[in-house]
C-alpha cells in the first residue's frame, strides 16, 4: 500500500506563446512521501506545480489523485481535492491577523444550539448562507489544536505585516492544514529563510510527513533536498529528466542531471590591481516613505577600477534600497554619492546616466524594459537622445537598426522577428541580455548589476558571468548585488554583507565561506566595517 500514488501527473504539456514551459512531464508523488522537484531557475518547476494547484490549465496531459483522474481548473478545485500550496510569494492579507488569514475563505460559521427548533433551523440556514457570522472561538480552538499537533508556534492575534517571514510561512502551512489538505506543495520555501530558520522548516516537514501528509518540495538547494526527501524528480528545460530515490543517488549526480553537464562556476580571481576609485558612497541613509523606518543606515563603501564589489545579504536587508538611492529611483535622506570624484547625489536620473552610471536593475520587467516595445526600442531606452540615434527630435531609424542588429549579434540575443520583436514575447534570458548589452555598450566606468542572473537558464547565467568578468578585466568598476551565495563567492573581489540596512561584515572571497556568510547575513555576528578601501596605486 505504501507504494500507491497520491498524485500522478502524466504527460503534462504547457505552452506560453512560443515557450514550451512543460514538455510531456510526468510527476508521481507516493503517499506519505516527500518528493523533491529539482531544477534550475526557469526549468518549469513552478509552472507544473501551478498546474497541479489549478492556476494554469495544461494544454494536454492528465492528473490523477489516488489513482482517479481529476480535473483541476482553479484553486478551488485543488482545495476540494485537498491539495494545498505555499507559494514563493505568500498569499496573505497584510492587515488581517494570523487567525483571520488562516480561516479566510473557509470560515467556521456560528451555530445556534439553543432552544426553539424552528428558530434554530432558520437562523442556522440564514447564517450559513447569508450572514456568515464567524465563530472565532471555535476557529481558534481548531487552529490551536493544529499548532499543538505540528509544533508550529505562531501568535494568532498579531497582524501579518508585523510578523517575520518565517512566521508568515508557518501561517501559510497552518492555513493548508486547517483546510485538511493532505497534499502539500512548497514552492522554493527556503529561499526567503536564513540558514538557522531553514533547519526549523525542515523539522516541520518531517513532522508533516510523520502525520501522513504527502509533500512536494520544490527547490534547487540540494543540501535540504537530501536532508528530508524520499524521491527526487529532476527537471531540465521543461522535461522530466529522471526520478531517483534519495538513498540511491548522490548530490553530484543530481546536480549534473539538473544542468545537463558538469557545472563550472568560474572562479577567476583578479590579477591586476585596483587603481582609482570610481564610486564612493558616504553615510548613505534612507527611510521608507510609508513606514518611516530607516532601511539604509549610514552605509559607506567604495568601488575601485578592476574590482567586483558585492552587496550580499538576505533579501530585504537594504541592498535594494542602496542601489535605488545610487541610481535615483528612490530619494535619499542623507549622504553623498561620488562618481569619478563628482558629487552626483542631487543629479536627475538622466544626468546620472550621462555622468557614467550603467545599471542592470533587479526587476527587469518593472525597471529594465518597456515590455511592449520592440528590441530596438528597448535597446536605445537610455540613449535614444544621443546624436547617433536622433537628430532634431527625429529618430534615426537606420542607425538604430544597424546598432541594434550589431548588439543582438554580439550578445547573442535571439528573437523571432529580429529587432522588431516585441520584448514581452521573448524569454527571460534574452530579455536580460538586451539590458546587459544596452548597459555595457554605453562603456561607462561603473556598472551596477542587481541579481543579473535571476530566473535565467544556466546558459544565460554563464554568458552573463563571463560578461561581468570581462568588464572587470577591462578595468571597470562593478557593484553587484546578489542573493545567491555561490555567485557571491565565485565572482566577488570584496564581499560586503548587509543586515538590517547596515554593512556588518567585509570579506575577501578567500576568507569567506557559506557558513560564515550565513552567520553575518542572519545577524548572528557583526563587525565594525570600514568598507572604503584606498586604491593600491594612486
Amino acid at each position, binding site marked *: 500500500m505504501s507504494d500507491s500514488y497520491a498524485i500522478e501527473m502524466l504527460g503534462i504539456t504547457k*505552452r506560453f*506563446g512560443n515557450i514550451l514551459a512543460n514538455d510531456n512531464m510526468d510527476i508521481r508523488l507516493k503517499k506519505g512521501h516527500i518528493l523533491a522537484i529539482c531544477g534550475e531557475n526557469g526549468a518549469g518547476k513552478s509552472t507544473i506545480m501551478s498546474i497541479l494547484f489549478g492556476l494554469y490549465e495544461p*494544454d494536454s496531459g492528465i492528473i490523477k489523485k489516488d489513482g482517479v483522474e481529476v480535473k483541476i481548473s482553479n484553486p478551488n478545485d485543488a482545495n476540494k481535492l485537498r491539495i494545498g500550496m505555499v507559494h514563493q510569494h505568500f498569499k496573505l492579507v497584510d492587515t488581517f491577523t494570523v487567525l483571520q488569514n488562516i480561516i479566510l475563505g473557509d470560515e467556521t460559521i456560528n451555530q445556534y444550539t439553543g432552544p426553539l427548533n424552528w428558530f434554530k433551523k432558520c437562523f442556522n440556514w440564514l447564517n450559513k448562507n447569508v450572514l456568515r457570522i464567524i465563530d472565532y472561538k471555535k476557529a481558534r480552538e481548531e487552529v490551536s489544536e493544529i499548532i499543538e499537533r505540528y509544533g508550529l508556534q505562531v501568535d494568532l492575534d498579531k497582524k501579518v505585516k508585523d510578523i517575520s517571514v518565517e512566521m508568515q510561512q508557518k501561517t501559510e502551512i497552518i492555513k493548508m492544514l486547517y483546510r485538511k489538505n493532505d497534499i502539500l506543495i512548497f514552492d522554493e520555501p527556503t529561499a526567503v529563510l536564513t540558514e538557522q530558520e531553514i533547519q526549523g522548516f525542515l523539522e516541520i516537514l518531517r513532522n508533516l510527513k510523520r502525520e501522513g501528509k504527502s509533500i512536494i518540495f520544490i527547490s534547487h538547494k540540494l543540501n535540504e533536498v537530501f536532508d528530508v526527501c524520499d524521491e527526487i524528480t529532476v527537471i531540465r528545460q521543461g522535461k522530466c529528466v529522471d526520478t531517483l530515490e534519495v538513498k540511491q543517488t548522490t548530490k553530484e549526480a543530481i546536480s549534473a542531471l539538473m544542468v545537463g553537464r558538469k557545472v563550472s562556476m568560474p572562479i577567476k580571481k583578479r590579477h591586476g590591481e585596483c587603481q582609482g576609485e570610481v564610486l564612493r558612497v558616504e553615510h548613505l541613509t534612507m527611510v521608507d516613505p510609508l513606514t518611516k523606518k530607516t532601511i539604509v543606515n549610514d552605509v559607506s563603501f567604495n568601488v575601485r577600477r578592476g574590482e567586483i564589489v558585492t552587496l550580499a545579504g538576505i533579501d530585504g536587508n537594504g541592498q535594494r534600497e542602496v542601489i535605488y538611492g545610487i*541610481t535615483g*529611483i528612490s530619494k535619499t535622506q542623507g549622504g553623498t554619492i561620488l562618481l569619478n570624484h563628482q558629487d552626483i547625489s542631487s543629479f*536627475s*536620473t*538622466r*544626468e*546620472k*546616466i*550621462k555622468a557614467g552610471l550603467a*545599471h542592470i*536593475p533587479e526587476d527587469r520587467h*518593472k*525597471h*529594465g*524594459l*518597456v*515590455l*511592449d*516595445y520592440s528590441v530596438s*526600442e528597448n535597446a536605445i*531606452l*537610455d540613449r*535614444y*537622445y544621443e546624436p547617433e540615434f*536622433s537628430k532634431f*527630435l*527625429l*529618430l534615426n*531609424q537606420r542607425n538604430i537598426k544597424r546598432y541594434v542588429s550589431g548588439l543582438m549579434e554580439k550578445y547573442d540575443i535571439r528573437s523571432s522577428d529580429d529587432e522588431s520583436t516585441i520584448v514581452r514575447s521573448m524569454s527571460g534570458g534574452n530579455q536580460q541580455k538586451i539590458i546587459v548589452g544596452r548597459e555595457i555598450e554605453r562603456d561607462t566606468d561603473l556598472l551596477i548589476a542587481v541579481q543579473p542572473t535571476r530566473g535565467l537558464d544556466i546558459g544565460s547565467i554563464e554568458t552573463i558571468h563571463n560578461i561581468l568578468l570581462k568588464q572587470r578585466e577591462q578595468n571597470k568598476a562593478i557593484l553587484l548585488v546578489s542573493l545567491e551565495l555561490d555567485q557571491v563567492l565565485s565572482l566577488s573581489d570584496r564581499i560586503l554583507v548587509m543586515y538590517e540596512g547596515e554593512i556588518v561584515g567585509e570579506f575577501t572571497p578567500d576568507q569567506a565561506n557559506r557558513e560564515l556568510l550565513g552567520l553575518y547575513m542572519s545577524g548572528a555576528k557583526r563587525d565594525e566595517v570600514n568598507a572604503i578601501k584606498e586604491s593600491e596605486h594612486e
Partner: protein
Amino acid sequence: MNRIKMFFSSLLKKDAAKTVITSLWCALLGLIVGFLILLCINAQEAGYGMSSIMGNFLIFKNADNRLDYFGQTLAKAAPLIAMSLSILVCYKAGLFNLGASGQYSVAVLVISFMGAGANLPWWLVMVAAMIAGALWSMIAGALKVFFNVNEVISGIMLNWIALYLVNGILSANATVWDSTHSEAFTISGESNAHIPTIGLDKLFAGNSIVGLGMVLILVVAIAIFVLFKKTTIGYEIKAAGLNGDAADYAGISKVKNILIATAISGALAGFAASLNLQNGFTSWRLSSAPPLIGFQGISAAFLGGLHPIGVIFSSYFIEHVTEGGSMITDLGFAPEVASIITSVIIYLSGFVAFLKEMMRKSEIKEQLESISRIKGAGK
C-alpha cells in the same frame, strides 16, 4: 490559389490587419443591433430606416443635395477626428482623457470671444483655442503627476466646471450671446474668423462649411502618426505610458511626458472646437450636459484601433451613422437610434482587444496541432 491563401494567412497574422478586422466586426455588430432595435420600434419601416442610416446622403435623388450632405458629413467628421486623436494621444501616455469635453468647452469660450465677438483672423482664433484646450487639459495632467489624482475623475469634474463656466460667461456677454435664440453667435461666412473654404466648397455644391479644415485635420492626423512613429517625443511619451518605472529609470521623465501628452491632447480637443465652430455651421447652446463629442471621440478612437490613420475612418463612420440617424425622424424613429448604434459600437470596441486575443489563441492552437501532426508523422 494556394499562394493567395498563403498571402492572406500571413496578412492575418499582422497586428494591424487584426485590428482592422476586429474593428469592422464591431461596426457590423453595432449595425445589426441597431437594426434589431429599429425592428422592435417599428418593424414595417425598419428596413427603410436602416437603409437611410447606412445611406445617409445617398438617399437623396438630387446630385447636388447628395454632394451637399456628403460635404456636411465630412465637415462634421473633421472635429470628431481631432477629438479621437486627443483621446489617442493621452492613451499612448497611459492616460484616459475623459476630460476632452471640458477642453472642448473652454476652447469654445475662446472662439466665441475672439471669433464671433472680436472678429480676429481665423488662424489666430484657432491657435488660441488650442492653447486654451491645452492649458485646461494640463490641469488634470498636473493633478495627476504632482498629487496622483486619477485623471478620469479630475477630467470628469473639469468637464462640469468648464460647462457651467462657458454657459455662464457666454450668456452674460451681449457681444457674443444671441439672447433671442439663447445661443452664442455663429461665425458667419464673411467673418475673418471663418476658416477659408479654399474653393473646396465648389466641389460640394457650394456647401461653405467644407474648407481648409478638412485638409488641416488630415495633416494633423498624419503629424500625430509621425510623432509616434518617428520622433523622440512620441518615443518618450509611449515609453512613459507603457512602463513609467522603466522610463524613469532610463532618465525619461514621467512628469514631463505626461504634461506634454496632456497638452497635445488638450490642444487637439481645442482644435476640434475650432473645426466645429469656425466653419459657421454651429455655435454654443445653453446645455446641461458636457458636449457629446468628447465621448464620441472615445468610441471613434477605440474603433479606429487607436491608430492616427485608423481614427480618420472610424470617425467618418460614426459621423456617417449619426447623420443618417438624424434623417429617420420622419419615419417615427428618434434620431437617438443612431446614438444607440454608436453606443453599441463603443461597448464592442472594448472587445477589440478581446477579439484579437481570440484570434491569437486560435493561431496558437493551430500551431500546436501542426506540431503534434509533425510529431505523429515522425513516429
